Structure formats: structure tokens, C-alpha cells
């Protein structure tokens, strides 16, 4: 109940009112779990923006993978991200967490760059996503390219400044049987989305 209220009274008005959001190809958003969303990562806002794309029915089952070191460092923040955002901490037990989430039909949100880089510049992708895809060959993986969040709330600056954000969704892909090829496909997917306006 608290999450439902937060979703519609705080999150949605914040993303649309303070930031402003433009979504390209919203029809490519997964309509049911299990599914994986992979996105470029520039800001803490990325998770919130992606959550806001979904109706609450799906948003409540979204499990963002987030740094355990950072988010579990203080007790209040840990309560917030574990209870309200339901993150899967990115630590040694991460893969188990992801497998469990996908097995129970949830949508996993991954930032394969591993960290928030320079705005709109894609850092090299970590291959953890390939391991996950290999173990779940029939779970669709949707690439997402986010712009603007890195200007609104970049790494290393706690002050939020309103900027329009845009989210471009790509065609879902499946595990192709080969790790190198999979990572290459994923990178190409991101690159195409990054060129799309």
C-alpha cells in the first residue's frame, strides 16, 4: 500500500513533473515477467525513471540490481532500497538473487556498465549479464538507453537540477549461445539506441 502510494504520488509526479520524460518505442517494454531490462547508467535517477515507465502492477515486481557497497552502507538507505525499491544487492550472492527473481516471474533491472559513468558515454559492458542470459535462455532482454539523468543528477553532485530525460527502448534479445557474440549484440543494441533521437 505504501509502495503504491509512493509510486503514484511521489515517483510518477517527480519523473514527469520535475524531470520530464520522453519515451521512444514504449511498445517494446516487457508486458510481463520474467524479463530483464539492461540500461546505460549515469545517475541514481536511472532506476526511478525506468520504474516510472511501467504500470504499478509490473513496477512492484521490478528488482533493480544495485551496488551493495554503496546502498547498504547506511541503515536508512539500506531500508529504503531493500524494502521500497527491492534491490538485489550486487555482491557475491547477486547471481542467486537474480536467478530467484527471474524464477518467480519478476523483472530484473541491470546496469551492465557496472557503474555510473560520464553522461551518455557508454563504458565497457561487464559480462555478468551474459552468465545470467545463459542460465535463462528464454527470458527476453530489453536494452534501454537513457539520456538526461546524468545532467539532472550526475555522479558526485548531490544537487538535483531539472532536465528533460529521454528513454529509448530497443528490441528484446535472447541468449544466442555464445558469450562473445552475445556481448557484441548487446553493445550494438546500445549503440543503435544511442544514435536514435
Amino acid at each position, binding site marked *: 500500500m505504501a509502495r503504491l502510494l509512493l509510486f503514484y504520488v511521489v515517483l510518477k509526479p517527480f519523473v514527469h513533473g520535475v524531470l*520530464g520524460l*520522453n519515451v521512444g518505442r514504449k511498445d517494446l517494454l516487457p508486458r510481463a515477467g520474467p524479463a530483464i531490462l539492461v540500461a546505460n547508467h549515469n545517475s541514481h535517477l536511472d532506476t526511478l525513471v525506468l520504474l516510472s515507465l511501467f504500470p504499478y502492477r509490473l513496477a512492484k515486481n521490478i528488482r533493480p540490481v544495485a551496488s551493495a557497497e554503496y546502498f547498504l552502507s547506511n541503515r536508512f538507505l539500506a531500508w529504503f532500497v531493500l524494502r521500497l525499491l527491492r534491490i538485489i544487492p550486487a555482491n557475491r550472492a547477486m547471481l542467486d538473487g537474480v536467478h530467484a527473481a527471474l524464477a518467480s516471474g519478476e523483472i530484473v533491472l541491470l546496469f551492465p556498465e557496472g557503474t555510473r559513468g560520464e553522461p551518455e558515454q557508454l563504458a565497457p559492458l561487464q559480462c555478468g549479464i551474459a552468465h545470467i542470459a545463459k542460465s535463462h535462455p528464454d527470458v527476453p532482454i530489453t536494452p534501454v538507453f537513457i539520456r*538526461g539523468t546524468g*545532467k539532472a543528477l*550526475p555522479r558526485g*553532485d548531490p*544537487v538535483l*537540477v*531539472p*532536465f*528533460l530525460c529521454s528513454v529509448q527502448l530497443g528490441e528484446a534479445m535472447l541468449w544466442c549461445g555464445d558469450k562473445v557474440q552475445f556481448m557484441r549484440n548487446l553493445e550494438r543494441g546500445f549503440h543503435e539506441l544511442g544514435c536514435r533521437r
Partner: protein
Amino acid sequence: MNPALLTVTLGTLVLLVIASAAIVLLRPSSEGDELIRRLKTWWVIAPLFLMALLPGRAFTLAFFAIVSFLALREYFSLIPTRRADRRVLLYAYASIPLQFAWVQWDRYGMFAIFIPVYMFLLIPLRMLITGHTDGFLSAVGTLYWGLMTTVYCLSHVGALLLLPHGGVGLVLYVVVLTQWNDVMQYIWGRSLGHSKVLPSVSPGKTWAGLIGGICSTIALSIALAPFLTPLTRWESVLAGALIALGGFLGDVTVSAVKRDLNHKDTGTMLPGHGGILDRIDSFIYTAPLFFHMVRYLHF
């Protein structure tokens, strides 16, 4: 309910119904979808604006303050900004509620000088504190230009509420005429336009569109003046011409900005129109010019 507001509301409704019927019946093949999207957006923004006039001055001003915020946010998202200036942008945003508050508090003097004097001095000062001189001039210039256009110029629509017995009628007058002029210039230009006014800036603007727009806007400005304004017949002709020309100038000014930045539209907020700046660009000229004309002649 204010009888003038009621008349204009009914008039707007009739126009929207006629336009919708025309699109459904004629089914223009080229750009048909675009026109339908545009009209759908009109069905949302026209009632929103008219409702914003109903509850009173503070509410109307809040409406325009929100429009200013959306326009400024769109502008800041469009231009290149330096990361070092993030806090300066917050100062610019923070000036919006104040600028409209001067109107609410009947402080014409502060309204007139707050952005051109105080914000003009404060923004470079705040930028100096960050200490980044690379791109200083272009940063302060682009940032301030956005503040002047999306906040200062637009706030002159709200400032019409400051004028004694001015109020809602004058706001309706300038907004309806400015939007009418946009639509008329578009329709005239589409139906019989060939030679372009400013081909290198805006290839869509033709002499036929401009002159047809001026004539249509003057016709409506004469018709509406007795209901909404204290203007005499000849003053209303002048107001119509000023709004038509000003609307054209505002439009091509923002076109030049878009060309410079390689964008077709300023945003995507208003389907069929583009961004919010694409819709309100005409007010950059019409709002201050009309405000000062009325203030000079009647108050």
C-alpha cells in the same frame, strides 16, 4: 462567470469543433496524421488555459509560472550546458516564482527590473564563484537569453493582470490573438504560399502566410477589442498588427535557435506541435510589446 471569458470559451469550442470536423471530412492526405495529433493537443491545452483563468489572479499566475518552468527546462535541455553551472541553472529556475510573485504583489517596478537588472547581475556572479572560465561567455549568454525569453517575456502575459481594470480580458486577448495568428499564418502559408520571407532560417514561412496572418489577426483583434479591452478601433488595428508581426518574429527567432542546435523541434511535450517552446515562441515578442502598448495608451 465573466461574460467575455464565456464568449471566448464558446468561440474556442466552436473553432475546435469546426477544425476537427474539417480534418475528419477532408482527410488531408499529406501531413494528415500530424494535423490530427496537433488538433488533439489543442483540445487539451486550450481548455487548460481557459480553466486557468477562472479561479482568480494567483491561480492564473501559477499557470503561467508553470508554463515558464516547462519552457525553461526544455531550453536548458536543448542547449549545451557546463556541468559546473548546475547550481546557476537552479538560480534561474528559482527566479520564476519570484518574477510572477511581483505581479501577484502589485510590484510593477520589481516586475520590470528583477530579471533585466538583478538576475542579469546575479547569474555571472554565481558563475564566477564556480571559477570555470572556459566557455564562460557562451554559458552566461545562452543561460540568460533563455531566462529573458521563457520567463521575462512570457511573464508579461501575466503582468496584464497588474493593470487597473485590465485583467483577464487583456490576457485572453493577447493569448487568443497570438495563437490565432500562429494558426492563420500556417494556414495561409500552406494554401497559397511560395516566396519565402526568411528562407535560410525558416523555410516554412512565406509572404502569403505572413500577410494573410496579419490581415486575419487584425480582423479578429478588431472584433474582440470591445469585449476584452479598453482599446479603441484604431488601437485594436495597431494591436492586431503588432501581435501578428511579433508572433512571426518570435517564431522565427526560436527557429533560428533550433537551426543552430540542429533540432527540428524544441521537444516532444505537445504531440503534433513539438515542444512547449514551439507553442509559446510567439509570446517572446507579442507579450512584452502588447503589454507596453496597452500600458502606454491606457494606464
